[in-house]
């Protein structure tokens, strides 16, 4: 049979985001896959070197459209660590609640992408609707639906509006009430099982070898979560579980997404109960005269897709000297995707790719 080269994406129905894969196929079988990022390259890391510390704060969130919040968090943490800024206790709790809401919102989006790609349009539409409810919460808290620009160095930008706690509880209850419906229609659907189980199977050894993070790693039976390893915000104040599965295939990864969402909702309720009163922001230096002492730092958070790191260097000036993001989609989307696609069917390309939860803008930062 003849070997063909097939361009998959970036304009492709099964492809989410500006990303493409070049496939070498023989019939239906993939011999070799090459990831092709770069369609969304905006040079964020370089841009940040030309903006002052405060001007970077509205910029970093744009690196990731689906979950901008963990980007804000990791930047705020790096600045706080370099400049030794304290964060008020209440702000830590608000940050945790906000990040968990973002995780739910991001997972719902991921669920939409995955179920839509598989053809489960009903579940996909539900997920999109429920994500919108989360966005309504963000709109009320921060004034924007997608780029919230909320976690700024020193705390958060504004306190909860009046009655916001109750609103979170109400919204999450209404989404949580639909979990049985989701289970019936999607997660416990035989078609989903048949379509996803055994697809894109990654062994534990390979997961460690290729640096898998997030669901991809946890689906192979390893329990790993930055919120536990290096607690930040208020994660050391609450008890929560890390969903782990053994099979390492697309099915396990998507079920972990569901379990994480449920776990996040429980965590939000616990955090809201424990949330102290008080200030939410410690004033940062005058933005026009803000110089951060010379130094370098590496901070990391658990984003919805796994470990997100930021390495930042200051030379004592008013702008960062060097910024580098270690994004979860980078490992999952380039190395692991190429490996998992080898030997798979063309019909499973989207399946594998989206189950790895790849978000292209993160790779092209």
């Amino acid at each position: 049979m003849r070997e063909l080269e097939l361009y998959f994406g970036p304009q492709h129905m099964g492809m989410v985001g500006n990303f493409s894969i070049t496939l070498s196929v023989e019939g239906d079988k993939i011999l070799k896959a090459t990831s092709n990022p770069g369609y969304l390259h905006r040079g964020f890391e370089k841009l940040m070197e030309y903006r002052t510390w405060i001007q970077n704060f509205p910029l970093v969130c744009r690196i990731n459209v689906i979950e901008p919040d963990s980007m804000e968090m990791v930047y705020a943490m790096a600045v706080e660590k370099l400049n030794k800024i304290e964060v008020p206790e209440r702000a830590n709790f608000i940050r945790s609640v906000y990040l968990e809401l973002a995780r739910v919102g991001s997972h719902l989006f991921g669920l939409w992408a995955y179920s839509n790609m598989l053809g489960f349009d009903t579940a996909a539409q539900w997920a999109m609707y429920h994500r919108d409810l989360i966005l309504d919460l963000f709109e009320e808290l921060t004034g924007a639906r997608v780029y919230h620009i909320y976690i700024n160095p020193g705390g958060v930008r504004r306190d909860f509006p009046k009655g916001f706690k109750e609103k979170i509880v109400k919204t999450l209850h209404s989404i949580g009430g639909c979990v049985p419906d989701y289970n019936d229609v999607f997660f416990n659907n035989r078609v989903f099982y048949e379509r996803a189980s055994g697809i894109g199977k990654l062994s534990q050894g390979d997961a460690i070898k290729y640096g898998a993070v997030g669901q991809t790693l946890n689906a192979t039976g390893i329990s790993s979560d930055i919120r536990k390893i290096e607690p930040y915000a208020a994660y050391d104040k609450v008890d929560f579980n890390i969903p782990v599965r053994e099979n390492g295939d697309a099915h396990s990864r998507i079920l972990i997404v569901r379990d994480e969402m449920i776990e996040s909702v429980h965590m939000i309720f616990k955090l809201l109960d424990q949330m102290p009163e008080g200030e939410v922001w410690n004033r940062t230096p005058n933005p026009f005269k803000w110089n951060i002492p010379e130094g370098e730092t590496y901070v990391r958070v658990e984003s919805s897709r796994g470990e997100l790191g930021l390495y930042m260097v200051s030379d004592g000036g008013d702008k960062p000297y060097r910024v580098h993001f270690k994004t979860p989609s980078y490992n999952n989307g380039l190395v692991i995707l190429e490996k998992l696609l080898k030997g798979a069917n063309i019909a499973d390309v989207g399946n594998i790719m989206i189950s790895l939860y790849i978000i292209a803008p993160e790779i092209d930062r």
Partner: protein
Amino acid sequence: MKNMKGSLLKPFKAVRFLFKKPKTLRYPFEPKAPALRTRGFHINDWEKCTGCGNCADICPNEAIEMIKIKELKTEVGKKNERPQIDYGRCCWCGLCVDICPPGSLKLSRDFFHIHFDTKTFVFIPKDERIDKEHFFNGKDYSILKASLIHRKKDYDGYTSDFKYTLFNPERVPMPEVKPEERILSFIEQVIGYNDEEAKNEAERCLECKLCEEACPAHLKISDYIKAIYEGKPDESLRKIYEDNPIPAICGRICMAHCEDACSLSIRGESLAIRWLKRYASDSIKDYKAVLEQNIVKPNGKKVAIIGAGPSGLSLAYFLKLQGYDIEVFDALPGGGGMLRIGPPIYRLPLESIDKDVDYIASLGVKFNFNTLVGKDILFEDIYKNYDIIYLSTGITVSRSTKVKNSDKCILALKFLKENKIGKRQKVGKNVIVIGGGNVAMDTAREALRLQHIQYPSEKTIIKTISLEDWDIMPAKEEEVIEAKEEGVVFNPGWGPKEVVLDENGKIKGLLCMKVKSVFDEKGRFSPTFYEDKELFLKGDMIIEAIGQAPDFSFIPKELFEKIEFTQRRKVKVDENGQTTISKVFAGGDIVNINLDAVTAIADAKVSAEGINLYFKNKKQNSK
């Protein structure tokens, strides 16, 4: 896991959703109300906006540009510029809202803009109160009308919150001697910032330069504050000396017009510009080594300056650097003029004055102290022997209330002068000060200290009466507060009627009458009283501090007649500081109505330019 593989039939449960009402909003018929904090298009309250440009400076996308608005006037603390926003660049982050010092810039809940013309995406936000034409009531608004020029009224979204402003509204507190301690001696009340405090205070500056326009002498304030922030007081002092040669003095007693204009003062406390100037001058021990100023080759032109006050000193400095031959005459034993005798030692120690004066003298300016023009040297001789005469004699004669028996009272200037450079005066146990200005405050607080020193364990009283009520009290607010802290009793709204004497001819007290109004309808000073409402204040000493007048008795009659005066009895000068006699220039309190040091410096700057121009024109005419 009971059934990992899942069910084939259960998914069909979703069919029941076909019979439910859709969750989707039928937009635009069912519009969705934006949240209260929505970050939509900008609204700017033009009346509050100062045109400081901080929004343009912080914008990460350079979407904001400050545009000159012709209809607006530039006034103290306000520029005639307003922000213009390019919505092709704006990212709605709201940093401009959080930095806005007056809090005039807000984001609205409008976020639709539909237009064929891309030029409409660049626009100058206004506020509905000014722009009634384009702001609709909610019910008149529809998506069809949605655009930048058609907006909803009262639709504020993300607004400035004082708790979350990016600027720091709180001043670094100035360390001061406590009131109970400072009234016992003449120790300088303000201790001064240390390096760290000065740096922290300097960090608050937003560099909007509203202060520089408000300062009569236009000091490069944001530059010297920045130098302090960078830990370079020497650089700061060099910047100050470009426009102000008496920083140690001004750093203590300047009226600080700049601080009134400071954009931080609108909602918070203004930057302590005066204290930072004081820090810059105090932290440099030897001006000469730091300033390294070179004097250009002498040009042989002789200038006589009469009066070594701030105006005279400044002119001497400015002209000396340009090579003029300067001689200064002053009746007092040292430089500083009114500042040498007026502000008490706890506000302005003599060492600080001498520090500034000594530097000017070290440049080669010749000072003739203890020389009263008209007595020790005749004005005619000066007039004959010098190319230019600069009058900066100030207002040196205290006015009296001229009420019955007022000859028994003491005049404030005499009192202050004697205490500062002569012998300490004996004060009564119950002193009344007449006046509500800064001199009255100085007098009262000075007398209070003397009382505590002279009657250590006895009860003593200081009272002030002033025509002006609290709201129009001419004294600076902080001075009134400090006087109150120290125990001065105020009686605002009362005017003196008669000094009451006892049978021995000694002062028994002051009879006062209630003030009806201080100013007439044209705003001129013309007090009226209720003759029947009286108040008797007991006292054994009365000091009058109701203002001063200039003394021109040293000028011979034939010359004096040539000098013209303005309606407010000030020496008339043109835009170059030149009086109606061509070789006589004037500045300071005899010219301006602000009656403060920094305006006197400004006058000197004008005259320095004017004198250069005078010689330039003369040279051209002689050719």
